[in-house]
């Protein structure tokens, strides 16, 4: 699916180690086709930003090659500057300038002049809804206004490949909605967008192609629903009105249903993590679990949670879904929090 001839980014055997001997990327291969929206996810330090900087040609890998628009991302970086835009987490704006002055400044640096520059600036001001504040100095802007200007400057030269490093951090829900709307619109114009983010729900919703990194390695590279289908762990959430009674007995009963469950109890809820694929047994397990809990307390909610990218992320990266606790039974499976 991701090997079509319209690929604009091609990474092969990328290894990157920082000076302090920390491996950021290990043997990374990646192809990105034109007009894709790709979400890159992973824990802090998993190599997401490094990967983005390597695509942008800002970092040179020790091994492997990076071709962007058939050009070497590092050696031929000057030729790529009009086609690629790397928009960092740092807003990189001059607080003493106004938004409009900043737009004029960067339009000139990208070689836009005269009527072209003016038209482009006015279009950006309108489409990013910045008319209200654009003439004020940037040090008076809100976080959302800064992010809009940051993005507008990043696309002033209409790059065909947009690399966004955690663009939703510190944005309120309106700001996030605006950003994802912008990403989709920009992609519809024929451009490619790569987004690094921790917002797994958003990535699942808006990115048809997801790359998951763990300790510098790509552990998943597919459609979100394919990743979820093949990697999620079934989790059953139960909520009750009253406090849970006789937890030891509850646990005993639940372990009779399936011996390979990790159980996490809270005051009025429980979470059952099934370690093997329960597949067609799901309705039966659901029914039996409700029955066990309903004997001593009133169950208000019981639902499966195995449809999210977060779930697959935990499984693929080997992160604990059930937090470790000192209060374990002899089988070491229960965690009473």
């Amino acid at each position, binding site marked *: 699916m991701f090997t079509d001839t319209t690929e604009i980014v091609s990474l092969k055997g990328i290894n990157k180690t920082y000076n302090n001997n920390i491996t950021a990327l290990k043997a990374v291969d990646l192809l990105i086709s034109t007009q894709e929206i790709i979400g890159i996810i992973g824990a802090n330090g998993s190599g997401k930003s490094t990967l983005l900087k390597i695509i942008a040609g800002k970092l040179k890998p020790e091994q492997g090659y990076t071709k962007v628009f058939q050009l070497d991302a590092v050696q031929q970086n*000057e030729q790529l500057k*009009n086609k690629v835009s790397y928009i960092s987490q*740092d807003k*990189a704006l*001059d607080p*003493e300038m106004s938004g409009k002055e900043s737009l004029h400044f960067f339009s*000139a*640096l990208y*070689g836009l002049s005269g009527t072209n520059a003016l038209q482009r600036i006015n279009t950006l001001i309108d489409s990013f809804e910045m008319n209200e504040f654009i003439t004020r100095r940037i040090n008076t802007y809100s976080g959302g206004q800064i992010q809009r200007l940051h993005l507008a400057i990043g696309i002033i*030269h209409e790059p065909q490949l947009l690399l966004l490093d955690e663009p939703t951090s510190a944005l309120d829900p309106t700001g996030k909605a605006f950003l994802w709307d912008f990403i989709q619109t920009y992609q519809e114009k024929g451009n490619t967008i790569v987004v690094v983010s921790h917002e797994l729900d958003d990535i699942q919703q808006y990115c048809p192609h997801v790359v998951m990194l763990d300790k510098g390695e790509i552990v998943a590279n597919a459609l979100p629903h394919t990743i979820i289908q093949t990697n999620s762990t079934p989790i059953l959430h139960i909520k009750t009105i009253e406090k849970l009674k006789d937890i030891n007995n509850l646990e005993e009963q639940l372990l009779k249903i399936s011996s390979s469950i990790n159980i996490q109890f809270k005051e009025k809820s429980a979470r059952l993590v099934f370690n093997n694929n329960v597949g067609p047994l799901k309705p039966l397990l659901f029914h039996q679990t409700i029955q066990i809990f309903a004997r001593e307390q009133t169950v208000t909610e019981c639902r499966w949670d195995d449809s999210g990218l977060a779930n697959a992320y935990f499984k693929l990266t080997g992160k604990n879904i059930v937090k470790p606790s000192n209060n374990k039974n002899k089988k070491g499976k229960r965690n009473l929090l």
Partner: protein
Amino acid sequence: MNFSSLAIAKVVFKRTWLKTLRRPVALTFSLMQPLMWMLFFGFLFHRYSLDEMPAGISYLDFLVPGICAMTVLFGASQSGIELIRDMQTQFLNRVLSTPASKTMLMVGKVGADTSRLIIQSCLVLFLALALGAKLQLSILPLCHMMNSLILFSIAFCSLSCFIALKAQSQENMATFVHLVNMPMLFTSTALVPSKQMPDWLARIAQFNPLSLVVNNSREALLFNNTPEIQSSILPLFIMATLLFLLTSYTLRSIQLN
């Protein structure tokens, strides 16, 4: 060079000036400093005997060219501080991500700082006249003096930007400013004629570029003279060109994270 390259220098020039004008306190202080030097030194040493100078030249007259050159030195040595601020806000990183010519970025930056310093030097001249200094103001010698100041400013703005790009911290930059300004001033002929210095200091002053600028300015303002270009302007031109090229090259090759 094309229109687009000039447009780059123009927007950087404009931005540098905008930022200068938006910091009125810093601007006022940079104007007050040479005035204070002129007042305090001028009046403190007004009885100082200038052995090698013709009669009728007061210490204030003698001092004015030195203060003009000092204004340029002190201002130019701080030129790189703005670059450090741009590095800290990642703004410089963003600028360097554009395809803009790094040489034209430097032309805009050094051009703006130099034009500001030349205006400040002219203001020093007007203030000196207001304080009663007797100065010669003929066009050709004045142009010669301005050329010296411009080249000196280009050289030291470039050097300051070079140090800023290498040091990448305000603390290191402040050390450079302190290390350069005072020793350069006191080992030059800005405040005292070389013949009235100890021999060892006079020898250092002879090779100090600030002395060359001061001497050129003094020839213009006190004696209405235009010294030979080979000995008065050419060394400054070579120094300005080399330092400007070095800084432009450094800006092209710098790796900012």
